[in-house]
């Protein structure tokens, strides 16, 4: 697995894939994409990195523990659902910013929700992959 080319390539590819995943996440509301696919791309990027550099290095590169990623993803999704309760609206009601934000258009809690999905999916996939690779 310690192919120098792959190792170098992935080092360059990693930020690009992460950017692409963010792109998928942000455009998901209007075009095919979304948090789920975005999260999987993140996972794929780190999985490739791990294949090239080993499981320890992969974990180091990710910086946060995958389980924390899962937990925070769930927390963000839950929070986006809880926010409208403060406004007296039902759970998971979408709240939107009055003025469109640059780049993403309207900003609102559904986007936050999708961000939670994104983080959770990435964390979940990586948790499984790391654990399995560690076993091997």
């Amino acid at each position, binding site marked *: 697995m310690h192919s120098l080319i792959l190792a170098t390539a992935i080092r360059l590819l990693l930020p690009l894939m992460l950017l692409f995943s963010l792109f998928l996440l942000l455009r*998901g*509301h*209007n*075009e*095919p*994409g*979304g*948090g*789920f*696919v975005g999260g*999987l*791309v993140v*996972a*794929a990027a780190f*999985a490739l990195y791990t294949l090239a550099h080993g499981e320890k290095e992969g974990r180091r590169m990710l910086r946060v*523990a*995958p*389980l*924390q990623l*899962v*937990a925070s*993803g*769930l927390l963000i*999704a*839950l929070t986006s*659902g809880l926010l409208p309760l403060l406004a007296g609206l039902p*759970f*998971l009601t*979408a709240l*939107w910013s009055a003025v469109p934000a640059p780049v993403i*258009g*309207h900003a*609102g809690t*559904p*986007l936050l*929700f*999708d961000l*939670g*999905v994104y983080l*959770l*999916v990435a*964390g*979940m*996939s990586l*948790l*499984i*992959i790391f*654990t*399995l*690779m*560690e*076993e*091997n």
Partner: protein
Amino acid sequence: MLPALLLSIPLGLFAWFALQIGPVATGQLLQVSVPWLPSLGVALSFRLDGLGLLFALLITGIGALVLLYASSYLHDHPHLKRFNGFILAFMAAMLGTVLAGDLITLFIFWELTGLCSFLLIGFDYQQEASRRAAFQALLVTGAGGLALLAGIILLGQSVGSSDLTTILNSGDLLRSHSLYLPILILMLAGAFTKSAQFPFHFWLPGAMAAPTPVSAYLHSATMVKLGIFLMARFSPVLGGTDSWLICLTSVGGLTLLLGAAKAIQRTDLKQILAWTTVSALGMLTLLLGLGTPLATTAAMLLLAVHALYKSSLFLTAGAVDHGSGTRDIRRLGGLGRTMPQVALAAGLAALSMAGMLPLAGFIAKELFYEATLHAPYSPWLITAVAFLGNSLTVAAALLAGYLPFYGTLKDTELHPHQVDLRLWLPPLLPALLGLLIGFFPAAFGRLLLAPAVAQVAGKPVPVELALWHGFNPMLLISVVTLGAGLALFSLRNHFQMQRQSPGWDTEQLYDLLLAGLPRFADMITSYLQNGRLRYYLMIVTGTAVALMAATLFTSSTGTLQLPRPDGSLHEWLTAVIILAGALMATLTDSRLAAVAALGVVGYGVALIYILFGAPDLAMTQFCIETLSIILFVLVLHKLPRFTLLSSTRSRLRDMVIALGVGSVMTMLVWRAVSQPLIPSLSTWFMEQSLPAGHGRNVVNVILVDFRALDTLGEITVLAVAALGVYAMLKPRSGKEGTD
């Protein structure tokens, strides 16, 4: 607990009930009722009438004696307090049953008596025999109890009320009701099991494993009489028909003879008494079955008299055991010298049991014969049965009340000694009461018996008891009975020899059933729950699909119009690729090839999604499929290779099942798509997506907004799946990792 304080409970109750004798004799009916479960029409309701009062006096009176007796008999028993508690609970349950004014109330207390008796019979739980007897009693009476439950519910539904007063006035309605016979059979099943009638009689002698005070209480005066009580209680509404007459007289007669015959074959005092109790219960059933006013009077009198002499005899048996160390009549004799008061009690009680003048038992027996002689059908046969039973009873009375106390001690190893007051007074009192009733039968008859008989007969019946009726056929039979009894007594060694070869009894049937049940259960269970997952899968899926197929074929109207096969070449190609992948996955013997085949199926499905306007689905499917393949490869190379484990035969069978499942699903889809399309929700989603959901990708808007709750659940599943993988593969160590 202080004995005095303890005794004050039953004595106080006894006194209260005694005060009610007057009012009840004048025809008053005391009733209280509180709603309990009004939604089901259940009330906690009590009524005090003549029948209940007679029982209540016996229950509280003998209960007090038993408590006093036990305070000496069990004084060094570690669980004496528990015993007193159980007895009081049992007494409460008994009172509740006999005073119940509502069917459900009656049933509840009925079941409680069974439960308390379980604890009492099994009081010496260290002994295997006690545990067995307790369990047997619980099971037999419990099973009967459930039949009774069905019976009373049907009874209540037929009448439209569970209130006893209403029911007791609905005799004509019930006797002509279409459910009369089932009700009768179910109620009798409850009564017969509780009152140890043939073929359920065996539990009663078995229950002699209980401590003697328990036997004295449960098996003379109280629990076993509940079945009799039940029949007496409902005889105004259920009695008087041919089925009632035949059922009760035949079962009663059989039980009577069986019990009496077994009694004289026994050498253990308690066993003798137990079997004579069975016999006496048979007499009572027989009398209730006859149902004439005379028979009813005889039954109520016999009931009271039996309770008195039998409790006395049981208590003396215990005293003999306590004072000499054995209850075997072959080893005993001459105890009258060491324990004269006990001997007096036993003698009086035995005379009453044998029906000797001037004791109450004599009056009962005279009435008994009078009733059988006037029986509604085959009076001579019934009288003959009664005669035989009574003769045997006389012999048994001599065995239990005469043999141990007179003559000389047979086993010189024994050192009998006097017993204290608390052991001889309780048996003496009921014995003396028997004598008292013999002297004042008229008052007893008027005050206690007549109100009870009126309840059982459903109408007032003149009760005129007298000790001496002059010379009549009944007296003649009585005298002959005594003679026959004496003769049988003198032949006792012969009968007791016979005992060496155990005769056949329904108990063996019970044993067989009880031993067979776990074996049968084990057989069935190890057949069904055989531990093999694939059989479970086959049964579960097979049943589901078979049911679906059956419904599919019965529910469809007309022939199936197959949708026209259309579609372009690449669509067909995709479909074929998917099928080929599935086929390859099933047939290949290489793990890697199987993973690849699975990938082919997955990607093929993704292709279908693309072709039919679902790019989001396709993207997700592609990603997931890829990730799945990685996971499969990571896991599979640690697992064994595929090997051929099944025989050709079972593979063929599985193929047939699998093809069956597949074809049912195919047909179902055909059916579904051939039905007209109903306007679905999607129009609304399409319209609202941009203005309300601020997104043009409707699928994504549904996922994160319209149906975000689904997605929240979905990501929770993912989180837990990840957690599960982590938890399963986390090495077992005391030290916790960082994630």
